[in-house]
């Protein structure tokens, strides 16, 4: 499958940069480690290296282009024997309107290809009238807007964490909040995860509604005692007397080239804990609507974002109060042959896999869990009743993971509907390696998801 080369980030806060120079041209063969391009910002320059061996299929952005957004595709790398036409367009976000007639003719094997099918519209969430206008926002902007709207709506809501105020967030999610709400409600903390997580819990005990940002969820391991022992269990331990309405949010999951301690998915860790709700959206609209729901929820909510998705744009409904309910998953692509279920970045990869499978005549349905706890098992079961096959996808380690949980639930609730064993696609069972080729190998990729779907499809 062709690989999109994305605009790299020189720093966690970089949003866009200049593609200064291409050092390769279309048709060149490259090997892993070859320098492909020079990238510049006003602060630094860097060389973009090839992660894989292959052939440059297409240069999407001409050299000298300013304002290239981080994670925007800039070139296509073809594996041996592939042609540039094999790349099926990947939606930058879940489509919110049916795009009839836009489906490009698949260039897969002629005998197996099905007619192009319009991409399925996402079923509207409750409360979004059909025909609602939308605006294109990045996930980063959507999260910021969610916090700002809730802080305007409820004076009890405040934000605290490392670098959230003056610096506007290590990943620039809290842009403009200090200016609008002032230092009493947008609070920089010392580097004290267990401390400030506990402070947030205490503020919630006292009736406020804190949003606690972890610079990344990797550092939440310092604070997990407060999240589990103080936030999640208190309502139960106190016999229902004390609530803890708090949101713990921040980027989670594998980032890019930051190695084992900074690249890990905590979804299963927190989804294990009764007393927590756990949310992990992929798209901008869900990021906004679910964060608003999380802030209003009377329970502690762990809200898992993804660094690599912050810069992705998506259509967000223009409504006075757009709230996506926690606990409801979403069918982001309808299909009849196999169900692929995932969350966060895994959904994006699953959609790419589904696009590739379509070219082969396999019609995959993609379910975005959105909430991991409480899990919307019903939507998965309904989908499997239609497709009779299931692939789970997570960037986390597979052992005792979300896929394992879904697999067990299907054994209990949909065993007779399965025509093949559930297949799990997950991160490799190793700490995240640094080297680019090893990192790629350690993570689920669209090719691997597609292969898993083929195996359950043909295995029946």
């Amino acid at each position, binding site marked *: 499958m062709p690989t999109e080369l994305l605009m790299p980030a020189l720093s966690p806060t970089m949003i866009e940069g200049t593609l200064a120079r291409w050092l390769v041209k279309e048709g060149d063969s490259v090997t892993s480690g070859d320098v492909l391009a020079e990238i510049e910002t006003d602060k630094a320059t860097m060389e973009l290296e090839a992660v894989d061996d292959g052939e440059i299929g297409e240069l999407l952005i001409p050299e000298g282009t300013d304002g290239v957004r981080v994670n925007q595709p800039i070139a296509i790398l073809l594996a041996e024997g592939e042609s540039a036409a094999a790349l099926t367009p990947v939606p930058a976000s879940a489509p919110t309107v049916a795009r009839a007639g836009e489906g490009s003719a698949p260039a897969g094997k002629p005998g197996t290809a099905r007619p192009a099918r319009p991409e399925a519209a996402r079923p509207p969430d409750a409360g979004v009238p059909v025909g609602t206008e939308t605006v294109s926002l990045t996930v980063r902007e959507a999260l910021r807007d969610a916090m700002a709207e809730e802080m305007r709506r409820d004076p009890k809501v405040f934000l605290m964490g490392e670098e959230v105020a003056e610096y506007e967030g290590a990943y620039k999610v809290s842009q403009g909040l200090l200016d609008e709400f002032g230092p009493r409600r947008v609070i920089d903390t010392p580097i004290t995860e*267990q401390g400030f997580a506990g402070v947030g819990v205490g503020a919630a005990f*006292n009736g406020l509604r804190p949003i606690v940002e972890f610079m990344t969820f990797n550092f939440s391991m310092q604070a997990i005692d407060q999240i589990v022992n103080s936030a999640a269990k208190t309502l139960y331990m*106190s016999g229902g*007397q004390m609530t803890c309405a708090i949101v713990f949010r921040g980027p989670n999951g594998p980032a890019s080239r930051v190695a084992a301690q900074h690249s890990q998915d905590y979804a299963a860790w927190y989804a294990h804990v009764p007393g927590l709700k756990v949310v992990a959206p992929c798209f901008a609209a869900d990021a906004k609507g679910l964060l608003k729901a999380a802030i209003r929820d009377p329970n502690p909510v762990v809200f898992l974002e993804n660094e690599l998705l912050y810069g992705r744009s998506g259509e967000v409904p223009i409504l006075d109060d757009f709230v996506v309910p926690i606990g409801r998953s979403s069918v982001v692509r309808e299909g009849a042959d196999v169900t692929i279920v995932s969350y966060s970045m895994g959904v994006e990869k699953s959609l790419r896999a589904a696009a590739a499978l379509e070219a082969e005549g396999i019609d995959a349905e993609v379910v975005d869990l959105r909430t991991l706890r409480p899990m919307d098992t019903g939507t998965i079961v309904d989908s499997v009743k239609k497709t009779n096959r299931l692939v789970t996808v997570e960037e986390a380690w597979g052992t005792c993971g979300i896929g394992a949980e879904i697999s067990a639930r299907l054994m209990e609730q949909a065993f007779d509907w399965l025509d093949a064993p559930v297949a799990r696609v997950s991160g490799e069972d190793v700490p995240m390696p640094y080297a680019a080729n090893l990192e790629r190998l350690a993570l689920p990729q669209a090719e691997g998801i597609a292969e898993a779907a083929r195996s359950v499809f043909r295995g029946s």
Partner: protein
Amino acid sequence: MSLDAELARRMYLDMWRIRMFEEEANRQTGLGNVAGALHLYCGEEAVGVGVCAHLRDDDYVLGTHRSHGHCLAKGAPMNDMMAELFGKETGSCAGKGGSMHVADLSKNILGANGIVAGGIGPATGTGMATKIRGTDQVSVCFFGDGAAARGPFHEGILMGSLWKLPVVYVCENNGYQQWVRRENVAVVDSVATMAASYDIPGVSVDGQDVVEVHEAAGEAIDRARRGEGPTLLEARTYRYFGHSMGDREEYRTREEVEDWRDNRDPIALFRAYMAERQWLTGREDEEIRTAAKEAVTAAVEFADASAYPPLAAAHADVLDTEWRADA
């Protein structure tokens, strides 16, 4: 709040109520009515009583694994607490928390806490919320000397000082961290000296002397209420029982315990102080002890007569399903 005869008699009653509650809880463990890790407060009564005497109902208290005394001193109903220890549905926490998680929101007792230093962050957070809201409650956080080694102690006090929060950090230094002498695992003798690192007052008092505790706590609480920030108050004290149930106490001698009981007992010291000032007659002393005894007897009867939680309670209150109007 200066000490007078009336207040002293109330505090003296509170100390006896705690002493007798704990001795009865110990007895009920032997009878099989109370289970689990019971950490008794006997010997440390002057600390909880001396501090809580200054607190209003809307002030916050967060505790430790050894918090029966804090809860009683803050005004938690004894019947509910005993029922909680019995695991009955009438307990403070409906029988679901037990000894280490007693909480009573009606008195802003935000819970004992079974994690060493676990309450320090949340106590700081209640103080932060008080400051954001602009009200004048004070948060008191009790913890042991073992907690002073832990990260949340340093992180919590750092933020308490940084933001000048209305919190009083009360360290009950009883000389032992579970089964090890403090001097074997600590490098400074007095926890109060650690306040210097966070630029707040550090005060060390004799935790067996309720008058001294009361006076120092008053200053710390007044300072917090005036918005001048936190104080680290260390009370040097001693626990008569082992760390928890089943402690064979091989780390200390019987003579050491006897010496504290005979010569440093906080109730006996306070009785002598009051007698000297003619604040307590022999008859009043007798009446107070009888009142404490009757309260404990009634609490056991209440707990004994109460029902165990219905099995449906096992799945209740995991999540708050109520969507509050003000949410």
